[in-house]
């Protein structure tokens, strides 16, 4: 059959009329179709090389076509490269981005539009899913309302339930809150990126893209703020008392009553008082302590745990979890919830898990106890429950990383049904003159939930011997140790994510992506995240000239605005109107300071470019290029390479390794053996000068120059 849309004729061999289902991704479309078809055998039609599924249910023909995430993007209506830009429109992504592979998907929906008697949006149930479905509905199918299926897993049970209980129309509040996030991010992103880039161009005549977003600004601001605290840190001395006692012929660490002593004289006096190394047991006590299981996973806690145990970045964890969701192995991962309602059918899930050899013992143990009420956390999410397994058996298509995340999710799920762990904690108090020391022990009485969650959590035991009150005790040693207060730890991807959650910067769905963007734009680097000179430069200028872009208040306010739109407390059009006016005022303020901001930014950029480039000397291989230290922004790893690599006539491939820890400095000296530069490497108090070549004869001789 043929359909015509916008003057273009499209071919479709699918019999009309039909109900058109919009799925978010190809894999989701397949699962939805197989679940909805009465015989679980939908027909597959290839349109524009995209699989479209035709299934039958309740005498209805349902055609399910997939998107591939967003098929539309916002674009400015005017074509001049200036600011403010306040007018925008939705356009198909493939028309503005060469890398967007969405044209075929767009064409498929266009071709299916006319035969559709009704439309059901079957995208993921969250703001983005709502927006993806709505834009296809509006711009490709020509409708403004549709039915909506809401599901948290892609299991047959959930899909059928979502179909039977589908909403008859879209939740406009929810949809508008998703749309407004796009509008606001676009408005702020494009205007401030243009404003900053143009400010630099005005001063220097050079064009350099400097981008900053509504959420990236405050996130980068937090990284730079922490870096400043570290750079401004002045250590203060303190002392600790370290000691060891012998009890029942075994050595035990004894803890002094004060963990930190701030005055040296006091520490010296304690050591003097205890110089006899003899004490008396003055108290023996024990008490039962209980440890309860951790709450079920919301996305943030899953990302943090996966980082802690596997060192997966938050964005990678989300990617693996989404793959597991699309394979119907776990529930929808973009959730804030720590709740597992009884309606999820825990007995059924546990029974299914008992068929998987890795989990059968513990799943059966939980089933036999017949207590299916999980321990839950406080956080809730209106759309989805906490992340949990569906019980479906994974096939061989799982990657090693996906399997790790799956195991973590299943074990966390099992653990919330476990009993509390019972630990008997004992303390032996030893007194030396007026000073008290404690020997601490613990004995696991019942592991409870911990055995379900191993190896991701475990407890260690220290069994204390039976001792007599008032008996004498001999110390092996009692010493004081000088120490210094330490600067705060830099963020890693996991702790930065946690900080964003605490500061309410971004949403569960966007945080991991924002961190990745900061790396991609060269604002931060390394596994232990530190800002690059460029990142510091941008924040420094904005903080002094235009702080709103690096403070979290603005982005937090916008999250509140989105919530109000969602709850229909405010109207989307009036909200956007207000936001545009506020933005216009802010940009006028920016324009007034444009030259000043541009000047500071340009100076900072020049300094950052200089400090990023460390030239060690001339290359001995090609005699043309300079040997420079190159640092990977993502991994933080570094090496030396020749600048003539980029010269097509030379293409020198000389490279030399560098230690990845410590500080490397140029010494301007040359190695007497091979003429290559000598660098200085320092880590802590260790400092060496060495030739950059690993094959240098000096290294074979064991010289460290």
């Amino acid at each position, binding site marked *: 059959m043929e359909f015509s849309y916008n003057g273009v004729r499209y071919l479709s061999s699918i019999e009309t009329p039909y109900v058109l289902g919009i799925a978010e991704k190809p894999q989701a479309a397949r699962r939805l179709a197989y679940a909805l078809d009465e015989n679980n055998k939908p027909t597959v039609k290839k349109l524009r090389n995209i699989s479209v599924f035709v299934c039958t249910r309740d005498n209805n023909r349902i055609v399910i076509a997939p998107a591939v995430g967003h098929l539309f993007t916002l674009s400015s209506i005017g074509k001049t490269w200036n600011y403010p830009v306040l007018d925008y429109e939705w356009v198909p992504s493939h028309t503005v981005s060469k890398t967007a592979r969405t044209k075929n998907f767009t064409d498929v929906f266009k071709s299916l539009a006319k035969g559709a008697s009704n439309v059901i949006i079957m995208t993921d149930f969250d703001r983005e899913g709502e927006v993806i479905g709505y834009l296809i509905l509006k711009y490709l199918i020509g409708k403004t309302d549709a039915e909506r299926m809401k599901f948290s897993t892609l299991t047959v049970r959930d899909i059928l339930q979502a179909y039977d209980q589908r909403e008859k129309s879209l939740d406009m509040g929810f949809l508008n809150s998703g749309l407004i996030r796009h509008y606001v991010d676009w408005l702020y992103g494009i205007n401030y990126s243009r404003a900053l880039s143009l400010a630099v161009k*005005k*001063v*220097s*005549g*050079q064009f350099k893209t400097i981008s900053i977003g509504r959420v990236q600004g405050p996130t980068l601001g937090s990284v730079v703020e922490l870096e*400043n605290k*570290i*750079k*401004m*840190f*002045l*250590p*203060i*001395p*303190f002392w600790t008392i370290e000691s060891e006692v012998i009890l029942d012929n075994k050595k035990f660490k004894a803890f002094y009553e004060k963990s930190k002593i*701030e*005055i*040296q*004289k006091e520490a010296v006096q304690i050591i003097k008082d205890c110089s006899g190394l003899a004490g008396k047991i003055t108290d023996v006590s024990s008490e039962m302590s209980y440890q309860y299981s951790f709450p079920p996973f919301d996305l943030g806690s899953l990302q943090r745990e996966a980082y802690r145990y596997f060192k997966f970045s938050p964005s990678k964890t989300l990617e693996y979890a989404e793959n597991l969701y699309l394979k119907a192995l776990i529930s929808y991962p973009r959730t804030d919830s720590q709740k597992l309602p009884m309606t999820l059918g825990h007995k059924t899930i546990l029974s299914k898990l008992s068929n998987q050899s890795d989990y059968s013992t513990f799943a059966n143990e939980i089933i036999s106890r017949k207590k299916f009420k999980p321990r839950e956390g406080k956080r809730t999410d209106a759309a989805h429950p906490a992340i949990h397994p569906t019980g479906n058996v994974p096939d061989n298509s799982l990657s090693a990383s996906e399997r790790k995340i799956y195991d973590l999710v299943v074990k966390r799920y099992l653990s919330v049904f476990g009993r509390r762990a019972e630990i008997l904690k004992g303390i032996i108090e030893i007194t030396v003159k007026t000073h008290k020391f404690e020997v601490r022990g613990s004995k696991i009485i019942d592991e409870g939930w911990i055995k379900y969650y191993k190896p991701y959590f475990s407890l260690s035991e220290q069994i204390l011997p039976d001792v007599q009150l008032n008996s004498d005790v001999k110390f092996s040693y009692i010493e004081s140790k000088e120490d*210094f*207060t*330490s*600067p705060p730890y830099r963020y890693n991807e996991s702790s930065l994510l946690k900080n964003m959650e605490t500061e309410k910067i971004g949403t569960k769905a966007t945080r991991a992506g924002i961190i990745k963007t900061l790396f991609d734009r060269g604002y931060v680097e390394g596994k232990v995240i530190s800002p690059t000179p460029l990142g510091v430069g941008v924040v*420094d200028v904005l903080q*002094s000239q235009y702080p709103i872009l690096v403070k979290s208040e603005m982005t937090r306010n916008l999250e509140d605005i989105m919530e109000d739109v969602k709850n229909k407390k405010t109207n989307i059009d009036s909200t956007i109107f207000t936001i545009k006016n506020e933005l216009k005022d802010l940009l006028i303020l920016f324009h007034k300071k444009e*030259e*000043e901001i*541009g*000047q*500071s930014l340009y*100076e*900072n950029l020049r*300094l950052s470019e200089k400090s990023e480039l460390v030239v060690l000397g001339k290359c001995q291989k090609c005699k043309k290029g300079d040997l420079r230290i190159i640092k990977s922004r993502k991994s933080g790893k570094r090496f030396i390479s020749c600048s003539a690599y980029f010269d097509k006539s030379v293409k020198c491939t000389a490279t030399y390794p560098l230690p990845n820890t410590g500080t490397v400095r140029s010494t301007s000296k040359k190695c007497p053996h091979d003429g290559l530069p000598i660098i200085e490497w*320092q880590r*802590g*108090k260790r400092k060496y000068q060495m030739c950059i070549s690993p094959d240098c004869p000096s290294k074979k001789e064991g010289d460290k120059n």
Partner: protein
Amino acid sequence: MIKISSKKTLAVCPICKKNKENSQEKYCKNHNAAKKLLKPGYLSWLKAYGSVSWDEFLKRLLDLEGLVGDFIKEIVEYEFYFQ
């Protein structure tokens, strides 16, 4: 060809070469703040050790690689060692 604005440029910090926010100050914002931290820091050290000279305090700060912040280290090196 790089076009440099005719706008007056503020004097730069002698340590990091960044523009000073206030031309009356000797250093940039960060190095100024670092310098201001030295006195209360010294008083904390004095309280902790009972007696320590200013020079000893500065010398020992420089030895605490990895703990002492870069801004503090730079101001100590610039103001008290290399001048």
